[in-house]
């Protein structure tokens, strides 16, 4: 995601400072986890982009050599293999991040269900923090999860195809997709900010 993200770091150390308990504690911690996971995702995406660019370049060199009639040396293939498995590692790590995001959604759903049990179908009468209902926290988490889930699928597809693509335009489109993360809209960043603002990680 674009934009400065690290101006406020949400560390587990600050968690102990406030005396929140129960649903509020859980929700605030989840918001901090969203923040950290999204930063982790961006770092992985950046790391992966360099590898993806290398793969595209190696592939292009290979096909150029084929066209020029010189037999492609084996070294290129080994390097290509190396970059591909590197990118696979990055995607595996992103999948792990997504699994953690899924757990956050489950946890947030649990909070909502618990409150419905405690306070009835309408949920709690007084908001946990400023104004959001427990349901809104769950909805925001779902929106974020949906975006990252789709993005991971896209990245997996890119990994599958990139090393087998010879047309340079399509290669470029794959790299563009990787870089710009089309399924994570700018609103995702706003959703996170709203989450941080509501839970008090960011000051009003």
């Amino acid at each position, binding site marked *: 995601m*674009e934009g400065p993200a690290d101006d406020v770091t949400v560390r587990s150390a600050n968690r102990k400072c406030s005396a929140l308990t129960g649903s509020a504690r859980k929700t605030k911690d989840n918001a901090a986890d969203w923040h950290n996971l999204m930063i982790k995702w961006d770092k992985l995406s950046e790391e992966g982009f360099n590898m993806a660019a290398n793969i595209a370049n190696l592939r292009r060199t290979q096909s150029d050599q084929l066209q020029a009639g010189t037999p492609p040396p084996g070294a290129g293939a080994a390097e290509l293999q190396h970059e591909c498995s590197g990118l696979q590692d990055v995607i595996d790590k992103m999948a792990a991040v997504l699994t953690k995001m899924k757990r956050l959604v489950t946890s947030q759903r649990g909070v909502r269900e618990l409150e419905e049990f405690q306070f009835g179908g309408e949920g709690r009468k007084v908001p946990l923090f400023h104004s959001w209902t427990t349901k809104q926290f769950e909805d925001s988490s779902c929106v974020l999860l949906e975006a990252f889930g*789709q993005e991971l*699928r*896209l990245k997996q*597809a890119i990994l*599958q*195809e990139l090393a087998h693509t010879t*047309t*340079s*335009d*399509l290669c*470029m*489109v794959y*790299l*563009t*997709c990787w870089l*710009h*993360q*089309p*399924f994570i*809209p*700018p609103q995702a960043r706003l959703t996170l900010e709203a989450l941080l603002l509501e839970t008090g990680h960011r000051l009003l």
Partner: protein
Amino acid sequence: MSKLAIPSLHQALRKSFTNLESNQKVWKSVLAECSPLMVSLGNLAEQSRALSNVQISNTPLRDFPDLEDRLRFKLSHATDVVLGKLNEKMSSLQSVKDSISNQASGVLQLYEQNADSLDMAAVTERSATTPSVVDMLEWLQDAERHYRQQLLRRKYLLQMLRADDLSSLESAPHRWKSLDSPDAEDRITDTLCKVSFFMESQ
């Protein structure tokens, strides 16, 4: 009368050249910051071009809902961000140019106010360390004109860019570079060398 006007003109010229010297540095550094932004602009245009050349429905990406629209949105968003940053740089260049213009016109005005009382010999007189007043006025005007033209040309180039006009974006980095005018910059550096003793005097 002319005896009084020359020292005050000298003082004003000295101040203007000092100002020009520091502004030249700022101008160069701001311009250097623009280069990577122009490269980004060209890259984004290249990415948009590739996207236009590819029929997504014929590729393995066809399974992704409205991928092309989403990608186009992201690309134009990124282009907007880069253009916004370039506009900020242009405001910095504008204030550099304004400062140079103000100095140059101020000195010229001071000269014109005293022109009647200054005789030709006084304004053309020069020594080994001090160039003549008319020469220095001319150099200052030349420098001012250079920055004014540079600013207008670069501003015009940026204003003509549209996020949906790929070919203009693609050619922008090249056209931006072709506006560089190292000769004129060198002349200003030369001028500053010529007046360096004068600036240090007093």
